């Protein structure tokens, strides 16, 4: 009995040791990013002795990249892009999801087939024509260009269709008996019930937009009109050896989303997990 108990404790300690080891591997890159961002170039490239902590916590790198790379503008661009994409995606997908999930209309299967096909195709196939469209509209390097590919969402439509389908029938029927037309039933009864699906889609859309690199890089080549991710790529090209400054910029870029994630962990994990591998 005694030995079984000890073995149990041993296993538990072993599991924690393993998990902590992995956790360290996951965290070290972020910690190293932060530590480097506070160092001088000399400190960061010192090998003998190797410097782990900066000698003083200087903010020079942060102020330098903030002033020289319009970080305020980049934040505003990225925030607006995320905001517009989330609003557009949730709005269009909730309407279409409701129709596909609960209404009968001619051409439904064919139209839903379009949604499925979009989801199965590698998205790079859309890239060049989308770029040419924005270019022909003379809208490159604008806020509109950043939002453009995310105006509608096939995946979101699919997700919300499933959400609406899983809702019970009786509430909607009760509303119909009370004389609500379909628009009222959707707006006052069904849409509020599908809220959690919409929240998931919103978070998912926001994270995808935030992480996207190739589209903002080609559609918005100016550092004043692009998103955080694409701006990082540009900065790396410009001062590829000044790692303290690069790390300060990278930290600026990931900090807001990381803080939001730490506050709303549960919603983030659920929202991203429902994406089913589309990330």
């Amino acid at each position, binding site marked *: 009995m005694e030995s079984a108990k000890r073995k149990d404790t041993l296993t*538990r300690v072993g599991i924690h040791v*393993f*998990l902590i080891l*992995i*956790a360290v*591997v*996951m*965290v*070290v*890159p972020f910690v*190293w990013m932060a530590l480097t961002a506070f160092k001088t170039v000399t400190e960061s490239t010192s*090998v003998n002795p190797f410097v782990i902590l900066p000698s003083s916590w200087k903010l020079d790198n942060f102020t330098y990249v903030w002033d020289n790379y319009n970080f305020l503008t980049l934040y505003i661009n990225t925030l607006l892009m995320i905001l517009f994409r989330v609003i557009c995606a949730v709005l*269009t997908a909730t*309407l279409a999801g409701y*129709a596909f999930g609960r*209404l*009968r*209309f*001619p051409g*439904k*299967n064919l*139209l839903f087939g379009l*949604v499925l096909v*979009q*989801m*199965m*195709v*590698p*998205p790079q196939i*859309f890239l*060049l*024509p*989308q770029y*040419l469209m924005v270019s022909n509209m003379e809208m490159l390097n604008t806020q509109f260009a950043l939002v453009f*590919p995310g*105006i*509608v969402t096939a995946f979101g439509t*699919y997700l919300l269709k499933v959400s609406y389908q899983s809702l019970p029938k009786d509430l909607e029927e009760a509303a119909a008996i009370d004389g609500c037309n*379909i628009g009222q039933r959707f707006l006052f009864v069904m849409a509020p019930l599908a809220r959690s699906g919409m929240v998931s889609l919103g978070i998912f859309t926001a*994270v995808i937009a*935030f992480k996207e*690199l*190739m589209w903002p890089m*080609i559609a918005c080549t100016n550092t004043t009109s692009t998103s955080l*991710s694409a701006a990082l*790529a540009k900065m790396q090209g410009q001062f590829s050896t000044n*790692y303290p400054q*690069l*790390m300060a910029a*990278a930290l600026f*870029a*990931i900090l807001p*989303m990381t803080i939001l994630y730490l506050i709303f962990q549960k919603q983030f*994990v659920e929202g*991203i*997990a*429902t994406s*089913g*591998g589309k*990330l």
Partner: protein
Amino acid sequence: MGTVMQMAVPKINERRGHMKWSKMTKGEKTEAKWGLAFVTPTIIGLLTLNFYPIVKTIYMSFFKTGDFGRGNTFVGLQNYKNVITSGEFWGSLFNTVKYAIIEVPLSIAIALVLAVLLNRKMRFRSGYRTIFFLPMVAAPAAVAMVWKWLYNQQYGLLNQLFHTDVSWISDPKHAWIALGAVGVWSIIGYNMVLFLGGLQDIPRDYYEAAQIDGASELHQFFNITVPLVSPTTFFIVQTRIIAALQVFDLIYMMIDKTNAALKNTQSVVYVFYQYVFTYDNKGYGATMIVFLLIFIMLITVVLQKLDKKIVFYN
């Protein structure tokens, strides 16, 4: 997690309603009008933003981009011939597959172990989950930057810590492994969360019965967990393979154009990007993407066939 599973194999499962406008009742017509109105924004958007581009990309693959303001010229299957006979394309496809071979199995195996360990009442459970999932909300551009710095041969943390002198990402022989490792690091938490969902579906009694029979934890893992979680595993395998075949961000951010390992690491999408947006050879780039599309479709079909054979559904 149920919704995620259904997404693996999207199927149209409603009864096929052949609806003729003339045969519909007044109520049905009203419903149809609302339905069509509600899907209109999405359908118009999909047609403009996605379907027109698919057709256009395929169309462009038959043209050569005009130089110096001349129009595009129709070249038939010339681009296809060029792509097939180009060592660069096959090289990039080979690199992409190599990357997937590192990323997919490793990230899945580690994630499954982590999920099993976390799938019990324990201290710091949600703390671990939060940390493992963290890379999912970080921009790949930033992640790639810091890994490039960690991998730096002279000053990087890795070589300093282990007193080694490895050129992690510039040696053609193993740069792809280093890239794959970053891919694994980025995606473990996500796979783990999907596995945690899948593990919920395994009935507790199986484990209880096994414990009565005196089966060890390891035994239970291989004989109960692994087979019973296989629908989730298969779903993750499928989505991860397809995502890994589209790898771009890491390679673009971590491998400089002067890097000696570029030829051994550049992926299909990376080469596509270079042709279209750097060399302005749009027709050739479009053709590469058509090939990627075909390749991904083939893999999807093969995986669907395998699904029925190897996955354990109870």
